[in-house]
């Protein structure tokens, strides 16, 4: 069993490395004309939303909590990068990222503290409501935030090197910033993977699967949910910080509930029960959205319809569909594992309404 599990892990790691390598080759493909700059640009957005989606999925996929307010942390990260230079001058991007992480940590600590008192739809509604607070604040504090016009964000020095001063913006974004982004993505991927596969990640799964049992093995359910919330918020803030520079402009749209919904979609579309789901979801979402936007004012409608069709076709996300295809192919040569045998229902056990074990 152990060798089987470790082989699986190794295969996965190889898969991620190949994926990252392909991404690393993209700028070269762009240079020789295999990929357009436009596509590369979309890929960068995809990578950023993938970080946000992975972060969001720590809550939905691993803790069973549907946050409808991840725009808040994204926006806090983005606006921190956009606004901080007014106060601290033109620093290297790392300083701004650090500030964005701190800011999103503070906000997610506060919001999470309130939200983890609730579960299910109530949790979702609370996170939504809290996000609207951030959105309203951004609009109201227009002398800082530019209100609905937003704020322009200039290219930043990276690792202390002022690339922005001797490169044109497209060149900057498509070369140095691209690799910078890829590096942060790789690090985030690694850290989030570690977290969800750690003992802490198992504890989160326990709280997702059975709150009562988790408590009765000694897991402090609310506290762990709060930790998960903060981790999730911080990585979403990181995504927001990267977005600010890539987009060159931040607006209240990034704090809007519609944007929260986009993050949910990225995870659900890709498959929230799979670690990689949000990455796949993000790429597909970004490209579908881009092409939908070509249809003027109806693009939201078109995007929504396309996504609904996709979700109906693949209820466990695209990863789920791929997984079952892979299983079917493998089943040809190997007997299905016992895990797929149907669950027997314990009719005989349901003899009383008060079981003392199950809440709600």
């Amino acid at each position: 069993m152990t060798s089987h599990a470790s082989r699986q892990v190794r295969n996965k790691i190889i898969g991620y490395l190949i994926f990252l390598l392909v991404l690393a080759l993209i700028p070269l493909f762009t240079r020789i004309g295999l990929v357009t700059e436009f596509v590369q640009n979309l890929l960068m957005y995809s990578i950023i939303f993938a970080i946000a989606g992975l972060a969001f999925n720590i809550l939905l996929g691993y803790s069973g909590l549907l946050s409808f307010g991840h725009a808040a942390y994204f926006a806090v990260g983005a606006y921190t990068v956009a606004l901080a230079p007014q106060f601290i001058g033109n620093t290297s991007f790392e300083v701004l990222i650090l500030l964005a992480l701190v800011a999103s940590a503070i906000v997610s600590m506060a919001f999470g503290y309130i939200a983890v008192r609730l579960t299910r739809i109530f949790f979702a509604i609370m996170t939504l409501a809290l996000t609207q607070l951030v959105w309203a604040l951004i609009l109201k504090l227009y002398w800082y935030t530019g209100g609905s016009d937003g704020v322009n964000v200039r290219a930043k020095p990276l690792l202390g090197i002022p690339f922005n001063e001797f490169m044109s913006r497209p060149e900057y974004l498509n070369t140095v910033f691209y690799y910078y982004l890829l590096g942060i993505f790789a690090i985030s991927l690694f850290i989030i993977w570690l977290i969800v596969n750690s003992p802490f990640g198992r504890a989160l799964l326990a709280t997702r699967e059975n709150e009562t049992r988790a408590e009765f093995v000694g897991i402090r359910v609310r506290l762990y949910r709060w930790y998960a919330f903060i981790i999730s918020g911080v990585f979403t803030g990181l995504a927001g910080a990267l977005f600010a520079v890539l987009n060159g402009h931040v607006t209240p749209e990034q704090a809007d509930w519609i944007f929260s919904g986009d993050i949910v979609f990225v995870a659900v579309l890709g498959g929230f029960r799979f670690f990689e789901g949000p990455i796949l979801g993000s790429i597909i979402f970004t490209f579908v959205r881009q092409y939908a936007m070509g249809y003027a004012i109806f693009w939201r409608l078109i995007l929504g319809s396309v996504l609904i069709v996709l979700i109906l076709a693949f209820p466990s996300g695209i990863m789920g569909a791929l997984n079952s295809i892979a299983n079917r192919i493998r089943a040809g040569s190997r007997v299905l594992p016992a895990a797929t045998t149907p669950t027997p229902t314990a009719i005989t056990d349901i003899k009383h309404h008060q079981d003392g074990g199950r809440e709600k």
Partner: protein
Amino acid sequence: MISQEPILYTVDLKKYFGEVRAVDGVSFRISPGEVVALIGPNGAGKTTFVNVITGYFNPDAGKIYYQGKDITKASRTKKIRMGIARSFQLVNLYAELTALDNVRIAVLSRLGKTGIFWKPVERFDDVRNEALEILAAFGLEEKAEVPAKALPQGERKLLDVAVAFALRPRVLLLDEPTSGVSSKEKHTIMERIVSTVRNEKIATMIIEHDMDIVFGYSDRVVVMYDGKILAEGKPEEIKQSREVQEKLLGVTAGAP
């Protein structure tokens, strides 16, 4: 061994649900290594009694002592840390997770390792091995990689007990560990449980409806009726008590 000091005892414990006196002044004690059967008709208050001891509900009155200390007000998680574990009348497992993970999470929690987020869980060989040993003690080693939801009822019941057992408790409260299981399987389950808890000298209270099981596996029987303790004694004594016969055995004689 039964003459030992009790590890856990309650004094005049009460829990009311409005008019319903679910637990109505129960004074109970259990010693290390002892296997006590708690019996009584449906609605007698057995589960509620466990719920109050484990902190699922706060008692309305009375006290709970554990290792000589008053733990009436202690939180659920604190009581678990101290060594009081339970299983559930309706299984409470992590349905999507494997049998191994169901037990492993309990082991991690007991060792205070659930806060570790920087190292993959598979790298904790000691935890994994311990979880596998516990599964083996309950005859579930072959099912380690099977999701809990795919196990047959009897094995899910056993796994539920194994999870409680993985907390290495000193007091184990099992709420109908064999309900919903065929009577042949019942004996297998009880033998596994009783031999395991006796090896470890765990004070064990088992709520049970099946009288064969009750009389076959316990050192002492406590009879609850209407929230109160009606009788208490060695299995043979309880078997012969007229009052118990009328109120309880008569009632449950035809029960499954």
